[in-house]
């Protein structure tokens, strides 16, 4: 086979000399390192990569990248990233948002980016708290959550990010932890390779204001029991020795132990992220670690036309069809005119 020489990149090529200023122990440090690695694996040059963030702790991330980048205003990263990508489809565009930035103040842009299916990779850092403003509940905080702005507990239900993604007809959703870094890197790479809006929810720990919020799921001692990592074409198995699996139970999903109650490995579902129909994807994404394990990995990854590509194609098509050579040519050929000698 012919060996085609492609420029290759190392994680260090995406990293700049700035020292990351997140709190010691913050999950963002690990996510940043993983992102550098994922970008190297994707192989798009730093000069062709743009990282756009909103406001919040996680949104500081572009300052620690050796790429093009913009740290913008609260909630608007998706809209700005949409502008970057629509203007320049040749760039690979990443959006960095927290749960407040992406789902509260930026909720409208989030769902519309998904609806349009603009080809951006959204990393949603979900720590279920407002960290930068020092500890208020967020739109992903559980009902009853006590914080500085909810001293008696919240009286409202949270968003489940995956549910919003599916509600907005999203084509790609993946989930990882800030401590299961191999999986998180893999899903970032998959997100970058997906054409269309890709949402990667990273469950992240805020060491100061919401320490341990995900520990009951992510702690090594319980992780194998309370989470399941989904892989394309593989059986949905989990547990310390992969002894458990997900099976259909009427319209619902059920976790079973293989060899018990008459269930065999043949009953266990096989993951297919590429199925157009999103019913099973929704069910998997909504598993929360209580009765059924929380799903990690790429849950949905479906091809569909992307906004910027269709804009570009439409512009090329009408340009070719009309064949105007300039503004003046267009006016002369489409308007009623008269000449003054």
């Amino acid at each position, binding site marked *: 086979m012919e060996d085609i020489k492609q420029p290759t990149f190392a994680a260090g090529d995406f990293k700049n000399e*700035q020292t990351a200023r997140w709190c010691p122990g913050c999950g963002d440090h690990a996510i940043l390192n993983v992102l550098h690695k994922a970008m190297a694996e994707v192989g798009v040059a*730093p*000069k*062709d990569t*743009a990282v*756009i963030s909103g*406001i919040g702790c996680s949104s500081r991330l*572009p*300052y620690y*990248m*050796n*790429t*093009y*980048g*913009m*740290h*913008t*205003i609260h909630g*608007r990263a998706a*809209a*700005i*990233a*949409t*502008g*970057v*990508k*629509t*203007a*320049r489809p*040749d*760039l690979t565009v990443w959006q960095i948002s927290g749960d407040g930035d992406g789902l509260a103040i930026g909720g*409208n*842009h989030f769902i*519309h980016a998904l609806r349009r299916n603009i080809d951006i990779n959204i990393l949603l850092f979900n720590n279920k708290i407002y960290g930068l403003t020092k500890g208020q509940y967020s739109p992903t905080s559980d009902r009853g959550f006590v914080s500085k702005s909810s001293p008696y507990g919240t009286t409202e239900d949270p968003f489940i990010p995956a549910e919003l993604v599916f509600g907005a007809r999203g084509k790609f959703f993946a989930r990882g932890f800030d401590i299961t870094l191999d999986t998180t890197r893999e899903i970032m790479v998959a997100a970058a390779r997906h054409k269309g809006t890709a949402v990667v929810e990273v469950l992240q720990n805020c060491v100061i204001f919401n320490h341990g919020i995900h520990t009951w799921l992510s702690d090594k001692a319980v992780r194998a029991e309370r989470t399941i990592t989904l892989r394309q074409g593989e059986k949905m198995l989990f547990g310390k020795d992969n002894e458990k699996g997900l099976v259909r139970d009427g319209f619902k999903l059920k976790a079973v132990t293989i060899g018990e109650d008459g269930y065999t490995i043949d009953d266990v579902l096989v993951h297919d992220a590429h199925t157009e129909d999103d019913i099973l994807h929704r069910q998997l994404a909504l598993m929360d670690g209580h009765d059924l394990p929380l799903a990690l990995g790429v849950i949905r990854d479906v091809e569909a036309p992307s906004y910027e590509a269709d*804009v570009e194609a*439409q*512009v090329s098509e*009408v*340009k070719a*069809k*009309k064949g*105007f050579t*300039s*503004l*003046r040519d*267009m*006016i*002369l050929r489409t*308007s*009623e*005119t*008269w*000449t*003054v*000698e």
Partner: protein
Amino acid sequence: MLQSTNVKTLDKVVVRFSGDSGDGMQLAGNIFSNVSAGEGNQISTFPDYPAEIRAPQGSLSGVSGYQVSVGKDVHTPGDRADVLVAMNPAALKTNLKYLKPDGIIICDGDSFTPANLKKALYATDDPITELGIDPARIMLVPMTTLLKHTLADSGMDQKGIMKCKNMLALGLICWLLDRPVDKVLAKLQAKFAKKPAIYEANEKVIHAGWDYGHNTHASMPTYRIETEVASPGVYTDVNGNTATAWGLIMASEKSGRPLFLGSYPITPATDILHELAKRKDLGVKACQMEDEIAGVCSAIGASYAGHLAVTTTSGPGLALKSEGIGLAVMAELPLVVIDVQRGGPSTGLPTKTEQTDLMQALYGRNGESPLCVLAAASPTDCFTMAFEAARIAIEHMTPVVLLTDAFIANGSSAFRIPEENDFPIIKPNFVTAEQLENGWKPFDRDAETYARYWAIPGTEKGMHRVGGLEKDFNTSVISTDGPNHERMVKVRREKVARIANDIPELEIQGNPEAKTILVGWGGTYGHILTAATELNKAGTPVALAHFRYINPLPKNALELLGKYDRIIVAELNTGMFADYLQMHMPGKEILRINKIEGQPFLVKEIVDGVNNLIAEA
């Protein structure tokens, strides 16, 4: 053709077409204006749409109007009409106030049915007496009857026949105002090229209208309208919104930067989005976003990505965009923001005109947030100022707000289609390869303009981050240092101030030797110019200064204004530009003429205003 013995020669004539929204008055008006322009007249038009989307037929609230002035020295659509075309009793009632006392009315006599009179809330069955109209000045034309006779053999149904009523009125106007019927027909033929039967019917109807006028009303005065020699070139008729869109496209051609529009529909700015969406055929990427904020934000993204980026809106939308514009101020990105002003505050009077967003454009952001503010003076000036907004944004790396308004956005006049070299090349302030080799930093600046350099994604060694946080003057990395912040605030202010070195100086019009100077800005130019001309003619000497560059002001502006004893600012608000000038000229008394009725000035209001202020002194 028999020449009427009663021919008046006029410098200009104002015609107002009025009827139900479905009566085709805009089309009739439009053809009349374009044919007049082709005859060498100057034209200025103003469509007056009803507020309701579809009010009941025949009702007072459903009347739409189209006013046009044609002739010589035409700078406004005219205060009052010489000829009013009213297609029904409701149109007659609502539009009579726009007619000159000696003006002529052409009315559909067949429309005076009891049902229509009732819908238009007449108290009697004699609207002419009820409205106090001199019967000698009204032509009650049995339009419906004429139409039915004319098109009896056409095979058209009743509905189709009635649709030609506007052309009957146009035929009458052609007779009254000596417009060439063949030119009108040529325009119609082009419009109905694919529907020859419709064209034929309209042709018959236009002739019928002309013949009716000629045969029955020869005693009415007819008019000959003066023409004016315009600069040679190819012309078309354009409204301000379309001209704005075209000016941006010209700037894209001259800068080599592809044009991106992020917008959200809002009256009266939406037609710019419509035009630019069509102009995908010239490579424009026009995106209708999910809200006003996404409109400006997508434009900021496109600007960072190297495009000529624009967002278009009206007052309430500008309010929503303020935080985004602040980001463009801080990140020092080129951005054109177009605000087609309408009546406010809040939803206000969405279809009406005002100049009440000046302070919002200048100061409506948090923090010290200076930017360049421009204002277009007329429908065709929208082209020039949209080009200027883009030029300044790109060359000076700053957001620019261009203020237009509903009056010039919807109004139209004859536009000379620019030729290749009429507008200058725009030179983006790109970072050079040499700078990139030598440790360039994103907030390094041009020593003269203070503009930072533009490094477009994809450029080797140009990777950089910008954002809303304050940056260090020397290192371009984020900084919370107090003295550095003060320095950066002053640098950004100075950068905008230095745009004054790159814009035309203020010119004084009217009588420069006068002691009184009349001052205006933006879309009131036509009215103020006409008022100044009338005042000077009537023996009241006035100079005139009209501002299109608001921030920064032209370099010579304050010195020039300072020479006059009396400065009078006329504007469609409670005195925003007057206050702004006052701030720059603390010792000087600034007099004011203000109107906030959602309507343009009448020339007479300005003339009276100036005379009153002079008399009071």
